[in-house]
């Protein structure tokens, strides 16, 4: 096992490969800070460049790109509340309030640091448990997937700072948005209102940017002409690095996040996103002061970010050993491999150990490079916030419009983002938060598919969700979570003192 890791280090640290990884990280970082243009766009643009490289170098460069864009996405999520990818929507929830309190630099640093530690933990777990992890992936049938997603969605409904019932409502609305488009099983176009573009469903980027970006611009309309986004504090050099105590405080959340991420990362599909949402929910439960969440809690940034990046590591297990890509990015990576005549399969770890382990180590290294590259840059990004808001928001609108356009080269998606943005603003002003909605939208189609498949297999017998041990376990946890929410609501009528506290806390943020 250690031999493998050493081999990986040797591969990744050869001068060539270091350079490819560096180029990937740098380009990825630059592209990633443009909101809406995520790893998928960056990798598909640079894929042709990698044809000429040797397979290891090609994958290293792509992995560098992946991390670079992912990190760039975290930066815009925190500073401008613009998530380019779903997994960063969670970072928005607490990262953006932190930025408005003048702690954006620290939040970005923490996101980067947590992601780095997450990768380290992911690699270690993978080293010792990869055979076990492969078997776990086989344990998941449709019933288990459905039960796990149900649990994940309930966890997502806690992403609100307001009422949990409204969180659940948001999730369901998200699921309904996910239904739009062609039904996979029958080919019937559902809720397309006769518009051909809607038969492909609502574009994820349009939904995410509309719900967070446009909604945010509309909500800030009240503060126009009043200077910068910051509410308090100013930036000195010291504001970039978090205090020593803060890193120590964040360690438990990073550890929990990495553990969740490593396990969920193996599940093809929603692993990373689900892991980051779950990690947020767990941090909120574990915290002694859950009311800080949604108003700028550092754990709400570090936990999910760690989960996200450790999931990215273990996501290579199904991609490389089973040939099942978890998402579009992984599929592109798989494509890059196949172009070089390397077939993914259980034999890959044995036949090309330098590739497999080199890739893992390069992920670790890509993260390290990001830290080195970005620590001086954070200061510059954060300075963005000192630009008056009246100059920022038109630019933000432009970035949203172009970013959404670039995903499909289609102006229709720009009108979708506008519609979703206005809808999201109305919903948000009634207390329905965007993050759970987004989660419902992402998991919706997969959930429906697995629900239908599970019942098809059991010939319409609902018991299948309970009598299979794993799925039954998930169902039990889901039920327990629901029961605690109900119990709390019945027992704990809002007291005037608490309201006062909530009132002052929220006005401090706004």
């Amino acid at each position, binding site marked *: 096992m250690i031999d493998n890791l050493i081999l990986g280090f040797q591969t990744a640290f050869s001068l060539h490969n270091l350079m490819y990884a560096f180029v990937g990280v740098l380009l990825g970082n630059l592209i990633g800070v*443009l909101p809406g243009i995520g790893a998928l766009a960056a990798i598909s643009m640079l894929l042709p460049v990698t044809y000429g490289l040797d397979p290891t170098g090609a994958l290293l460069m792509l992995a560098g790109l992946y991390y670079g864009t992912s990190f760039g996405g975290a930066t815009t999520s925190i500073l401008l509340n613009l998530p380019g990818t779903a997994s960063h929507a969670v970072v928005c929830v607490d990262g953006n309030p932190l930025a408005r309190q003048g702690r954006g630099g620290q939040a970005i640093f923490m996101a980067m640091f947590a992601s780095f530690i997450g990768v380290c933990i992911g690699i270690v777990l993978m080293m010792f448990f990869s055979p076990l992890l492969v078997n776990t992936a086989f344990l998941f049938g449709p019933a288990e997937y459905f039960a796990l997603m149900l649990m994940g969605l309930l966890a997502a409904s806690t992403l609100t700072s307001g009422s949990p*019932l409204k969180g659940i*409502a948001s999730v369901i609305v998200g699921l309904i948005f996910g239904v739009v488009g062609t039904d996979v099983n029958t080919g019937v176009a559902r809720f397309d209102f006769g518009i051909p573009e809607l038969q492909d469903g609502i574009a994820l980027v349009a939904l995410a940017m509309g719900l967070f970006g*446009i909604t945010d611009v509309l909500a800030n309309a009240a503060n126009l002409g009043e200077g910068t986004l910051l509410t308090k504090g100013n930036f000195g050099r010291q504001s970039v690095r978090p205090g020593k105590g803060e890193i120590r405080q964040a360690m438990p959340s990073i550890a929990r996040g990495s553990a969740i991420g490593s396990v969920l990362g193996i599940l093809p599909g929603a692993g990373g996103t689900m892991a980051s949402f779950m990690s947020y929910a767990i941090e909120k439960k574990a915290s002694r002061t859950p009311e800080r969440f949604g108003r700028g809690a550092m754990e709400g940034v570090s936990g999910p970010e760690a989960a996200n990046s450790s999931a990215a590591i273990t996501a290579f297990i199904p991609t490389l050993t089973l040939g099942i890509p978890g998402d579009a990015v992984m599929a592109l990576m798989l494509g890059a491999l196949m172009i070089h005549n390397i077939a993914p399969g259980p034999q890959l770890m044995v036949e090309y150990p330098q590739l497999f382990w080199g890739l893992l180590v390069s992920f670790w290294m890509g993260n390290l490079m990001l830290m080195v590259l970005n620590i001086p840059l954070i200061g510059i990004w954060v300075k963005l916030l000192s630009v008056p808001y009246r*100059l920022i928001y*038109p*630019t933000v609108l432009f970035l949203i419009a172009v970013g959404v356009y*670039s995903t499909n080269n289609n102006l229709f998606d*720009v009108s979708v983002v506008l519609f979703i943005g206005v809808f999201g603003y109305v919903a948000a002003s009634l207390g329905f938060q965007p993050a759970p909605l987004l989660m419902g939208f992402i998991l919706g189609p997969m959930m429906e598919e697995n629900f239908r498949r599970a019942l098809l297999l059991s010939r*319409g017998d609902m018991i299948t969700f309970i009598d299979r041990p794993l799925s039954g376990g998930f169902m039990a946890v889901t039920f327990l979570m629901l029961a605690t929410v109900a119990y709390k609501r019945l027992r704990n009528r809002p007291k005037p003192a608490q309201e006062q506290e909530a009132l002052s806390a929220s006005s401090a943020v706004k």
Partner: protein
Amino acid sequence: MHKHKYYSAGFMLLIGVATTLGSLGYGLGSLARMGPGYFPLMLGVLLCLVGILLAVTPDSADEIRADAEREPLRVIVRRRLRPWGATVGSVIAFIFVGKYGGLAPATFVLIFMAALGDPKNSIKASFWLAVGVVAFAIAAFHYGLQLQFPLFTWG
């Protein structure tokens, strides 16, 4: 006063009922062999239930806060009409100018219109901001990222 509670419950009921009615047209099938309408029907009914629950359970903290707001809705809307109009209008303009004029004029119109939503932005400032962003768009998106969006086009 439970205004906000009923607004939010009504909002959810509206979406729930619309989904339920819409899904009835798609064919339900059976539990073992679900048609395209089954899952959305479940969601629609579930959302209606949650909407009813929202209406009958006590107000949540954010609703109490929102109800306590003294300013009537009309005043709030009137004060924000200009930025809202500029935001929504500029994106709509981007879509049309983008289709019939290309990336450069669309970007210019979007930035110029959006910037004027803030009363503190003068016409001159908006103009220069728009010029700057257009230059950035051409350099970064057209040449840098090779975005498939013609700079200028007619029709």
